[in-house]
């Protein structure tokens, strides 16, 4: 019989730019915050799962232990594009679910600085293809994904831009967000165009950040006290199944839909049972797609959902009340743990000014191009 798994401690550092710190230092900071939140010591931890993308071969997890305590526990380092943090979390979840460990630490960490444009920087032989055979920069790739929705349903530039207005507004109440400024619609639409229809304010922010969680078996969670424990009722990872255009146009929809279906099945709930969602708004266009991919509305209704404010704080299904990747920031490896932090904080009733009242169930979603989709469903413990 497989074990229930709980988040018994979780925290993140404020996302920002910390050029004076190293990746392990950032990770160590978050790890110690999470251990403190759980009320445990590094000596209590039986394994570490660490997610970091840019130093994937750099043994980041071990270097974090060099900062906070070399107890000799097994360390698994994972890299899975923007699903890196969720992949580490899922590794930890599986290890407890399998009955191997009772208490496991997860750290997601990234130092991006002002990385500028990601993707498309060349590789391959001959001449650079960027700007010759289209664009493989992330803003353009997600612009094209958004235009597919526009093609099908007539979604407008303004509707995409409204996502950014909403998420920036949400971030004003999150002290851990990189930016905390409202950006009215005219400002978002009038910002520098990066790749139509994504303006600069519709692109996620490259930042440094770290988030960490302590996961526990039911037995261990009971021992530590269940009051603030949050149940992980689904943990799912998918890769991109073959679809014809995926070869030249990364299909972020199919792997999300497959992950969502499996996650709802595992948790035994449906999208209507969710009280809040943190989804992968790497670009404003992406958030619109994922409303439908996650079943938050019917096919073709995503534009209406944003127009009616249903995904804003106080709406029917608040999305990205943390400010999302668009404003809180997107430190790749940390993102998939930080979004679990956001949901857990609401389920614990500790989100302060931005608390979604009465939140009992929440969902996190990330997608890494190439592709990997990670979904976690979290439930308040009774």
């Amino acid at each position, binding site marked *: 019989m497989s074990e229930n798994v709980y988040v018994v401690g979780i925290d993140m550092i404020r996302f920002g730019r910390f050029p004076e710190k190293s990746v392990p230092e950032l990770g160590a900071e978050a790890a110690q915050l999470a251990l403190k939140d759980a009320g445990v010591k590094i000596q209590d931890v039986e394994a570490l799962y660490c997610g970091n993308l840019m130093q994937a071969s750099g043994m980041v997890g071990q270097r974090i232990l060099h900062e906070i305590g070399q107890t000799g526990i097994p360390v698994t380092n994972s890299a899975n594009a923007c699903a890196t943090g969720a992949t580490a979390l899922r590794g930890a979840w599986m290890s407890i679910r399998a009955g191997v460990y009772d208490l496991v630490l997860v750290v997601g960490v990234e130092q991006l600085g002002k990385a500028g*444009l990601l993707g*498309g*920087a060349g590789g391959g032989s*001959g*001449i*650079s*293809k*960027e*700007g*010759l*055979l*289209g*664009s493989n*920069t992330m*803003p*353009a790739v997600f*612009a*094209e994904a958004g*235009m*597919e929705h*526009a*093609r099908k349903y007539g979604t407008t*530039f303004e509707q995409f831009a409204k996502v950014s207005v909403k998420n920036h507004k949400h971030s004003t109440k999150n002290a851990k967000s990189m930016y905390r400024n409202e950006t009215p619609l005219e400002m978002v639409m009038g910002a*520098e*165009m*990066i*790749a*139509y*229809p*994504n303006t600069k304010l519709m692109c996620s922010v490259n930042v440094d950040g770290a988030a960490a969680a302590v996961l526990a078996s039911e037995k261990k969670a009971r021992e530590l006290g269940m009051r603030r424990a949050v149940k992980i009722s689904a943990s799912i990872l998918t890769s991109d199944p*073959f679809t*014809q*255009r995926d*070869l*030249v*146009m990364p299909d972020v929809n199919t792997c999300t839909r497959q992950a969502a279906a499996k996650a709802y099945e595992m948790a035994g709930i449906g999208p209507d049972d969710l009280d809040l969602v943190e989804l992968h708004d790497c670009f404003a266009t992406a958030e619109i797609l994922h409303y439908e991919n996650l079943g938050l509305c019917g096919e073709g209704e995503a534009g209406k959902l944003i127009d009616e404010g249903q995904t804003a704080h106080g709406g029917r299904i608040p999305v990205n009340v943390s400010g999302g990747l668009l404003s809180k920031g997107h430190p790749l490896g940390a993102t998939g743990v930080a979004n679990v932090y956001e949901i857990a904080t609401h389920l614990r009733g500790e989100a302060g000014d931005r608390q979604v009242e009465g939140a009992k169930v929440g969902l996190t979603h990330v997608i890494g191009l190439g592709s990997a989709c990670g979904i976690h469903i979290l439930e308040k413990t009774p």
Partner: protein
Amino acid sequence: MPPEAAAEARGPRPVVEFLKIPERGAPYLEGQKCRSCGAIFLGERKTCSSCGASGTLQATQLSNRGELYVYSIVHRSFPGVEVPYVSAIVDLEGGGTVKGNLIGIDPDPQKIKMGMPVEVVYEIAPRKDKEGNEYLTYYFKPRA
């Protein structure tokens, strides 16, 4: 023959492996079609990632006619890349989806229509490699 003259005699190199430049006749894009499931890939491969069959992939000449599926107008790129330009995904007649620049139209969302008919055209790329070699590339152009 000096190396430069030899390069010239060989003519331009293809920008990607799936752009074929026959000794005689016009250049074309080549797909690899799976006999088992019909999936079309760009570039040679041993196994079909759609159905998993091996040894079923066959070279097939792709059409130079297609329709614009989706696009983005790229305003920010890397140093040396001229902007704005239109990055386009095109579905070719008879199968195959290809990405490239859409030229011959203003980079203006009012003018570019998803679903519009386009053709594949072949031109010498405006970039050379470090050794000064020329490349033949392809573009999409609106067609009547």
